[in-house]
């Protein structure tokens, strides 16, 4: 797994590539906790190059989503590959997490106007 951080329209986007599993999820969790501690309350995670996710990855996403919600913030996921998206759907995460097709869509949704 690799994480690249970038800013666009003053929104932080984390591009997560590779495999997000019980071996690698701690690294993403630390990164996300750091972002929240730094005061980010709008975040986009770009999964375009994510080829694999397990429940360990879902755990980190749910934890982050809960924290963002408490801070009245917003977390958007985008650009998931089909199999990754299926994992989110089976787990019912698509019911409370916005998942957009592209990172531009995510930016529009998070930064209206």
């Amino acid at each position, binding site marked *: 797994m690799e994480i690249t951080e970038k800013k666009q329209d003053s929104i932080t986007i984390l591009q997560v590539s590779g*495999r997000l*599993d*019980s*071996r690698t999820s701690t690294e993403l969790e630390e990164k996300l906790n750091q972002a929240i501690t730094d005061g980010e309350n709008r975040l986009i995670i770009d999964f375009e190059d994510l080829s*694999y996710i*397990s*429940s*360990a990855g*879902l*755990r980190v996403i*749910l*934890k982050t*989503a*809960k924290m963002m*919600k408490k801070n009245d913030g917003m977390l958007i996921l985008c650009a998931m590959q*089909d*199999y990754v998206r299926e*994992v989110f759907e*089976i*787990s*019912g995460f698509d*019911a*409370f*997490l916005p998942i957009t097709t592209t990172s531009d869509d995510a930016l529009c949704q998070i930064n209206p106007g």
Partner: protein
Amino acid sequence: MKKKIAFSLQNNLDELETLRHKVEQYGVTNGLPDKTVFELNLILDELFTNIVTCGYRDRNVHWVNITISIEKNLLAICVEDDGTPFNPVAVKEPDVGCSIEKRQIGGLGIHLIRHMTDSISYRRLEDRNVITMTKIL
């Protein structure tokens, strides 16, 4: 065609890389669709991760045995470990339909396995957990 493979992993999460390679190799050898390879990897990952993180009470090295085979249109998967007795079939389904506030962190591993297989059975044989699953191709 090599329709059956058997391999063993140590109780260490780094072995997930070995698992991945074994599964991908098996997929190529037997011409499995990418989606099946993905799901097969996920099923085995979830079980293996649980065994490594919850199964042992000592600090010794243990081996988890995995076999995968194809019989007609059925993929058969077997995972065997010498950890504490644990029957995944008996685990209650998590509530996956509630609001984010109520949503519990955890319990998704076995849920995913149930969705990605067509049968799961559990036996305790001597001091080993044996989980057998099938998946229609």
